[in-house]
């Protein structure tokens, strides 16, 4: 017991000894939420916003959407506190196993009809898309473009 108390005494967070003897559960939170990082908050530029909109194919160009993105970035910035020098990135918890690869044989198919059932527009055995190769309009033109349809 004394050894336990001595050992606890070395910790940064003081633990009331009576409680410590009773339970292994720490009586106080072991950590606190980080403060928002000081320094200038990186603003997402209009150029990046445009780029994101094209990549994500969802429009969010209202103040709320931008604010939400800013908050998400600020939240993620907490990762900078962690020292990851020399740490390899981890893709999968199964990284040290061989993943299963099946033989490259056709085992199922002939379900064209079934697959087409869920499409709203089709012609014969084809999915139908509107005209391609027309990029989304720039922000300033977007309103008129969308109204024109």
């Amino acid at each position, binding site marked *: 017991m004394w050894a336990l108390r001595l050992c606890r005494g070395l910790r940064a967070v003081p633990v009331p000894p009576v409680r410590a003897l*009773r*339970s*292994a*559960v*720490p*009586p*106080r*939170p*072991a*950590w606190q*939420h980080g403060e928002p990082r000081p320094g200038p908050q990186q603003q*997402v530029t209009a150029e990046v916003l445009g780029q*994101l909109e094209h990549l*994500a*194919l*969802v*429009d*969010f160009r209202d103040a*709320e*959407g931008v604010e*939400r*993105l800013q908050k*998400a970035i600020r*939240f*993620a910035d*907490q*990762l*900078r506190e*962690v020292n*990851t020098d020399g*740490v*390899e*990135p*981890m893709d999968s*918890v*199964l990284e040290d*196993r061989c*993943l*299963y*690869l099946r033989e490259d044989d056709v085992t199922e198919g002939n*379900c064209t009809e*079934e*697959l087409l*059932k*869920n*499409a*709203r527009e089709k012609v014969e055995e084809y*999915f139908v*898309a*509107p*005209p*391609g*190769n*027309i*990029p*989304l*309009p720039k922000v300033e033109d977007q309103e008129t*473009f969308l109204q*024109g*349809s």
Partner: protein
Amino acid sequence: MLRASLRQVSAALRDGHVTPTELCQRCLSLIKSTKFLNAYITVAEESALKQAEESEERYRRGQPLGVLDGIPIAVKDNFNTAGIETTCASNMLKGYISPYNATVVQKLLDQGAVLLGKTNLDEFAMGSGSTDGVFGPVRNPWSYSRQYKEKSVPKSHSEDEESNWVITGGSSGGSAAAVSSFTCFAALGSDTGGSTRNPAAHCGVVGLKPTYGLISRHGLIPLVNSMDVPGILTRCVDDAAVVLGSLAGHDPKDSTTIQDNFKPFELPNLTDVSKLSIGIPKEYHAPGLSSEILALWSKAADLFKNAGAKVVEVSLPHTRYSIVCYHVLCTAEVASNMARFDGLEYGHRSDMNKSTESMYAATRREGFNDVVRGRILSGNYFLLKQNYENYFVKAQKVRRLIANDFVKVFGSGVDILLTPTTLSDAAPYTEFIKEDNRTRSAQDDILTQAANMAGLPAINVPTALSERGLPVGLQFIGRSFQEKQLLTVAKWFEKQVKFPMIQLEEVKRHDHGVFQHQKSASFS
């Protein structure tokens, strides 16, 4: 009868005390009378009755398929089911009927289970309340229990139930509510950051997140491929073992299921815990943990200690970063996974037909809610060439540190970790929606997420009722692929704490007490 466990009702079917059709009908009628819970998105009445009839025929011939034959179950609406709508609680997939069954669904059906319907969730499983789906929030059955009503002091009678009802937690809230309100005997959920264990804790049921790679994800509409696992919700630990036994094992259609042989197991009744080493990770005393849950956790640790187990404080120093790390990895994988929803092949399609890209954009604006769109955008931001290293790769490195924390602790001789599952008991809906989804998820997944980072099996065991008369659960985390040990310890604990059964008027009216549990002297 409806309040029995899966194994008990299975025995009743075998002994002819009840037929699969009777059982199915009773569940269906209870689903109707508990419709206000909003636990189900789709009730597959016709096909369920047909499956029950087929099961009945097998029993009549004396050839049931096994313990699951004739057992009514429910499945979260993000698993594909042939012939039954799969919506993910999103406008994007309203009306979508998959041409195939998810492997786990197929396995349940192959063993004779009766699929009652598809349960409600947060849109695309993104949330921790089951409040952010297009079909509206799920109500926690405990809101209507005698236990809660007795303890909660209504401001006035009229606003009583309407304003006091509490959330189920999420995102598998529909499945947890379905099991908790006795409308089915087991349900499938999914668990990426805690989505099975969190609602299990709030609804007073057992919620098992198996080891990543043990159960097939084929047909589970993906959220985060490297962390998603199908989850199991049941009334008791033994039942979870039964369902696990029927689902686990390699699937050629999911290359991330391991090829080791899995043998279904029955759980022994542990009498001696003295050889066990239980770790108490101090970081799980996170800021915001309620004093009630802290006291309960402490009491549970003492319970093991007094029974002779070794109980040690351990440290998982990177726990606090798991939510931030998850935020980056999840949004990145979501950005990639959601690219498939473009309106062309399935799902919602906008009327906009100016160009392919404008149709895509309009479809996705109309089809996804703010939460999903927000995650897609953040994910694309973290994946931009100039951010990739600083955010995505950085998060993958932090993930390794989190996983290594567990490796070290289990390497030091600890068998099982004991932690709280949630910071507090379930919040009233009106309180819950005051915060936005991301903030909520960050708080609520804090005690469950790290197990997903490391792929470890973890289980919520209902432990006691809070002062408000709501369920509180504790979580056990085990070593990879050591489900049997994890569940054995969980079963021992379950037996000690004697969690009280929910007292619901609706159920009493529907049920004849064939299996009245004798439960007294509960753990609180």
